[in-house]
C-alpha cells in the first residue's frame, strides 16, 4: 500500500509538473494593451530634435497635418514595456525622446518572423513638414515603414538590429541634411528616393541581408557617402543625370560595372567630369555582389 501511495504521489507530482510546464507559456503570452497618444502643436518651436528607441513591433513615420509639431501614437503591451517619454525645450529647440523600457532592461524577441504577427505593438510617429528636425531612430526588431518625403530633416539616423525596413523620400527635403546615417544588422532593407533627402554625407552599414538603395530623386547638391556591407546583395540605383563615382573595396564581392568606366581607384560614370551634381560612394563589401541600375 505504501508503494502504491508513493507511486500515486509521484504520478500526481509529475502530472502537476507537466500541467505547470504546459501552462507557463500560455501565461506568459497574456497581453495588457495600452494606447498612448501624444501630440504637440508647433507653438513657438523652431527646431525639433527627436530621439526614439523602439523595441519590437511595427514602426511608421509620416508627415503630420499642418500645425502639428509631432504626433506619436503608441500601442504597447504594458506587461512587456513601459514607454518613457520626455520633452524639454531650450529656446526655440524642442527635444522629444521616447524609450521603451523593459523590466530587466533587456528586450527579448523570438526572431524577425514575429514582426509579421498582428499581435505586436505599434508606433506611428508623424512629424511637421515645416519645422527643421533632427531624427534619430533605434529599432531592435521591427517592421518599419518610414515615409519621410517632404519632411524637413536636418539629420536622420536610423539603426536597426533585425527588421524589414522601407524608407521612402518621395518628395524633396525642404532643408539640407548634413548626414543620413543608416545601419542594419540582419535585415531586408530598402531605401528609395534618397536623392530627395538632400544629404551632404550618406553612410550605410549593413551586416547581413538584402539591401536596396535607390538614389533617385531631385538632386540639388553634390554629396558623398560610404557603404559598408558584410554579407549579402547590395542593389544600387542611380539617376543618369548625376555623376557617380564608386570606390570599391573587397575582392570577394562581385561588382556589376556596366555603365561605369574603370578609372584609377574605382569606377565612375562617363558624365562624371561634366555633371553638375556628383555622388561619390566608397563601398566596402565583404562577401556578396553589388548590382547597379541606372534610371532616367
Amino acid at each position, binding site marked *: 500500500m505504501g508503494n502504491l501511495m508513493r507511486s500515486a504521489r509521484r504520478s500526481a507530482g509529475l502530472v502537476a509538473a507537466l500541467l505547470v510546464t504546459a501552462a507557463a507559456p500560455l501565461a506568459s503570452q497574456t*497581453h*495588457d*494593451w*495600452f*494606447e*498612448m*497618444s*501624444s*501630440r*504637440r*502643436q508647433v*507653438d*513657438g518651436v523652431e527646431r525639433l530634435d527627436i530621439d526614439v528607441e523602439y523595441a519590437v513591433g511595427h514602426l*511608421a513615420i*509620416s*508627415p*503630420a*497635418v499642418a500645425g502639428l509639431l509631432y*504626433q506619436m*501614437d503608441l*500601442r504597447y503591451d*504594458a506587461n512587456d514595456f*513601459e*514607454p*518613457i*517619454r520626455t*520633452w524639454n525645450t531650450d529656446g526655440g529647440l524642442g527635444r522629444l525622446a521616447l524609450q521603451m*523600457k523593459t523590466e530587466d532592461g533587456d528586450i527579448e524577441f523570438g526572431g524577425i518572423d514575429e514582426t509579421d504577427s*498582428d499581435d505586436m505593438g*505599434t508606433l*506611428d510617429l*508623424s512629424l511637421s513638414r515645416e519645422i527643421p528636425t533632427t531624427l534619430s531612430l533605434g529599432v531592435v526588431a521591427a517592421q518599419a*515603414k518610414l*515615409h519621410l518625403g517632404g519632411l524637413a530633416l536636418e539629420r536622420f539616423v536610423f539603426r536597426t538590429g533585425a527588421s524589414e525596413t*522601407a524608407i*521612402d523620400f*518621395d518628395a524633396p527635403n525642404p532643408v539640407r541634411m548634413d548626414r543620413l546615417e543608416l545601419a542594419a544588422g*540582419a535585415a531586408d532593407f*530598402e531605401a528609395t528616393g534618397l536623392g530627395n533627402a538632400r544629404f551632404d554625407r550618406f553612410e550605410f552599414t549593413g551586416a*547581413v*541581408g*538584402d*539591401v*536596396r538603395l535607390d538614389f533617385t530623386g531631385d538632386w540639388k547638391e553634390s554629396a558623398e557617402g560610404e557603404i559598408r556591407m558584410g*554579407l*549579402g*546583395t547590395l*542593389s544600387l540605383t542611380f539617376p543618369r543625370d548625376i555623376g557617380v563615382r564608386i570606390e570599391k573595396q573587397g575582392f570577394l564581392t562581385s561588382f556589376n560595372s556596366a555603365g561605369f568606366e574603370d578609372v584609377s581607384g574605382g569606377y565612375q560614370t562617363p558624365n562624371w567630369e561634366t555633371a553638375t551634381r556628383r555622388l561619390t560612394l566608397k563601398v566596402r563589401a565583404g*562577401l*556578396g*555582389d553589388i*548590382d547597379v541600375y541606372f534610371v532616367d
Partner: protein
Amino acid sequence: MNQSSPLRNEKERVSMITRLHGWMRAASGSVALPRVAATIAAAGLLTIFAFPRHAAAQQPAAEATAQNAPAVQETPAAPEISGSTVLISSDVARLELDLADGGRQTIELNDGRVLIDGADRGSYEPGGAFDRAWRELLRSPSVDETAELPELLADWVPPEAVDGGNGRSAVMAVFDGFDPRALAHAAREAPGATATDVSGRVTIVPRAGSIGQLASRLDELKQALSRISGEEFDVDGDFALVVHDDYRIDDATTIDGDVALLGGRLTVDGEIDGDVLVLGGDLDLEPGALVMGDIRSLGGDVETTGATVTGEILKLSAVSPDARSGVSVSADADDAWDRHDAERNYERRVRSRGFFGSITHNISRSISDLIGTAVWLIALTLVGVVLVYFSPKRLNAVASEARADVLRSFGVGLAGQLLFFPILLLLVVLIVTWLVVPFYLLAVAIAIPAGYVAVARALGEAVVDRRYDLFERFNLNRQNTYYYVFNGFVVLLAPFAIAAVLELFGGWLGFLRGLTLFVGVVLTWAAATTGFGSVIITRGGGLMRDFRGFRRKRSVPLDDLRPDMEQEAQDDATGGADAEGADDDEVENG
C-alpha cells in the same frame, strides 16, 4: 447640464465630504498617488460637493467669480426634523420630512425611480432587496418618533444594489445629511478647507448618486497612473474648475488655473490658463479656444481641431485584448502609404532576392533543418535500439514479414488505418467493449511506431545486403541488427536531409526541395503503413514466416531462417517461387 435639479441641503453635502475623505485615504493608502490624485482628493472633489448645484448651473460661468461664489459654513449643523409622513402603496413608498425651518424633504421610491424632492435621482428594482428594506423602514414604529428619526435614518443600511439600481446611494446621501455625528466628523476632517480652497473657484456639482462612479473613476486613475509610472503630471495647485457634467466655457471666459473633467462633456470656447486633466467624459475645444498648458487624458476623449494648445496633448487608454490599434496620422498619409505599399509589393514581385542576398538566411535555415533531421535520426534510432534490445525476435519477425511481402503488408496496414476509426466507433457503441478501447488505442499507438522501426530494420538489412560503397566506406555494412535499424533510418530520413541541403539555394531549387520533402513524407507514411500491416499480419511479431512462406509461432532464430529467406529471394528473382501462392497456402501451426 441638468439645470432642473433642485438644491441639496448644505449639510448633506458636508456629509458627502466625509465619505470622500474616506475614499481618498483608502486610495492613497494602497498606491502612492501622484500629486494630481491628492489634489483632487484634497481640493477638487471637496470643492464639488461644497457648492450648491444651482450656483454654477444657474449662473453664467463668467459670473461665478470669487465675489459671487457662495460661502460655505465651516461648522455645519444638522437640520432639525419636526415631523414625518409616510405613504405606502403598491407602486409608491414615500417619506416626507418636515423640517424645523419650515422646509420639507421628500424621499420617494416610485415605480422603479428614486425621487428626492420630486427630482429623479436614480433607479431601483421594484420588489427588490432595496425596495423591501425601504418599505420595512417606513413601516417601522420608530419613524413616528421624531426625536430618534435623524439617527434612525443615518444608521439605516439597506442591502447593496445588487439588482443594478443606483438610487440607493442617493437615498443614503440624503440620510447622512441628517446625522449630526457625520457632520461633526466632517468638521474635524476638513477644518476650514472648504472655505479656503474653494474661494473664487468655479465648480459644477455632479449629479446625486454619482459618488460611487467617482470612486470607481479614482480606481481607474490609480491603475492608469501606475501603468505610466515615471510620468510627471505637472498639475500644480488647486483646480480652478472641476467638471462632472455637461458644461461650456464661453468665448468671453478665462479659467485661471487647472481644470479637471471627471465626466460629461466640457466644451471650451474661451481660454484655460492652466492644465486640463481628463479622467472621463469628452473635452471639446472649439476653434479659437486656447489652453495655456498640457492636456492629459486618462480614458477620456479629447477633440482639439482648430484650437490652440501650448503644451502636450496626451491620451492614455487601455484597449481590449482583441483590439488593434486604429490610430492613424492623417487620411492623406494613409492614402500615400497604401500607394507606397502597392508600389513596393509590385517591385518585390519583379525583383528576386538573389543568391547572396539570402545566403545567410538560407544557411541558417539549412543548418536548422539538418540538425532537426539528425535529432530525428538519433531519436528514432534510440527507439529502435530499445526494441532490438528488449524484443529482438518480435522485431525481426515483423521486419521479415515486411521485407518478404511489402505489398501485402502495405495493403493490410492501409486497411488497418482505414478501419481504425470504424473499429473505435464500434467499440464505443458496443457498451460492453468500452473497457477494450484503451487497450485498442494503446495497441495502435505502439504498433505504428514499432512497425516503422521494423521497416527501418528491414530496409537497413536490404541496404547492407546490397553492399553499397558508401556504406562500406563508413563501415556501416555490418551484419548487426542495430546497424540495420540505423541504416534503415538513414535511408528513410535521407529525403529530409537532402531537402535541408537544398534549402541553401533558396528560391532557385525551391521546387526540387518541395518535391524531395514530398517524397520524404510519402516514404515515411508508406514505411509506417507497411510496418503497421506487418505488425497486424504477424500478430505483433508473434508469428514468423518460415522458409516455405508458412507462418508459425516464432521459435526459430532469425539466423537459422536467413538461408531460407535468401533462398526464397532467389526463387522470387528466378520466378521459381510464387510468394502470393505461398501466402494462399499459409497455415498457422498450433
